[in-house]
């Protein structure tokens, strides 16, 4: 703010909203195309469409934060104190999605117990009674 004239900031806002609208339409069409709604029998792998969607959404987030919320025009200190903490989320996402995958494996094991015999620590002889006898 203050760095741009009224006319040029108005132009930037119009340009930004046009890009955001275009990306959104593209995302929706791409999602429908990938799942075979637009062309009969034509599919794109979910991993490819998913990756594209995540990247495009991050572009949208960048445009909203940097242009609409004026982050581009703030001093570096403010930008860092607000944006750097969000990097913690990178690990949170990796860790919890991996956790979800582990839950998935546990569910499979519960449903289909013959796959692998589950031994408790006591059965494996890892835990001893207080008297020192092996169970």
């Amino acid at each position, binding site marked *: *703010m*203050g760095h741009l004239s*009224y006319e040029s*900031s*108005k132009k930037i*806002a*119009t340009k*930004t*909203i046009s890009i*955001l*609208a275009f990306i*959104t*339409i593209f*995302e*929706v069409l791409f*999602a*429908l195309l990938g*799942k075979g*709604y637009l062309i009969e029998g034509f599919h794109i792998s979910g991993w490819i469409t*998913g990756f594209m*969607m*995540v990247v495009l*959404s991050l572009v*949208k*987030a960048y445009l*909203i*934060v940097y242009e*609409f*919320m004026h982050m581009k025009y*703030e*001093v570096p*200190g*403010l930008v860092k*104190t*607000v944006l750097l*903490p*969000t990097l913690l*989320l990178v690990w*949170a*996402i990796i860790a*919890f*999605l991996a*956790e*979800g*995958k*582990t*839950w*998935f494996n546990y*569910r*499979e094991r519960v449903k289909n117990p013959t796959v692998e015999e589950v031994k408790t620590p006591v059965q494996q002889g890892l835990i001893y009674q207080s008297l020192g006898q092996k169970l």
Partner: protein
Amino acid sequence: MESDTITKHPHTKTAPSWNGGSEPFKASYGKLMMWYFLLSDAFTFSGFLIAYGALRFSMPSWPVPDFVFSTFPGGFHHKPLLFVTLMTFILLASSFTMVRAVQEGHRENRMGVVKWMIWTIIGGAAFLGCQAWEWNTLMGKEHMTIRVNPFGKHMVAGTYVEGDGHEIKEGTSFKAGASYMIHKHDGEWKPLKFKVDEGPEAGKVKEQSFGPKAFGALFFFITGFHGFHVLTGVIFLLIICVNSFTGLYSARKNGYEMVEKIGLYWHFVDLVWVFVFLLFYLL
């Protein structure tokens, strides 16, 4: 001191600079704290959305959004994602009108601020209306609740041995991965029976099973929490719009900073919707 402030910050002619001489990060107290509030709010939403991701990853199947969200007002069906795309556009448009209000504020144009804020309020209210319609369809017509999720996905190919009287007839075949919705008639769930066509259980007759329970709870809590933010935003926009109209902010001569602050909040609501839209509807 007074002249210092004037030369440094053209918009804050009379506002004291946090009483310490100069403003930290060249931002007013209110604006900086709004940023930190939004940062903490971002973590709250991230917690919800990451929980959604973890639970979705832990399930063998998950309802297909193109199937679940495919109704449109006026009795239209099989219009995948059309209605939520409309909702997204309404929110984006209201974000744009908010930017315009902030810009008019910077040049102290009172009626310009009021005009664009009214458009923003209309956009926010329209979004809430759409969400109300969406929730009403899911809860009232399709009977999804935070505990029951009628939307499922077939894990194996099969053939229905009974019809539902609408689209599914006896003998209709489906592939693995096909979506279905269990209907409720006269207060009773009517899952359809089908014969499994492939795999180790081929030949067995099974019933449609309910989809993952977590889907309904996650959907209503996360979109509800977002909708609550929109509602709060609309209320604050209304208050600030009235204050702008009465000339309260013109008297402060700080470039309608209050409009800028609620603008930050409003864009944040739009920002969150980008990710809600991504996780619930696109993926």
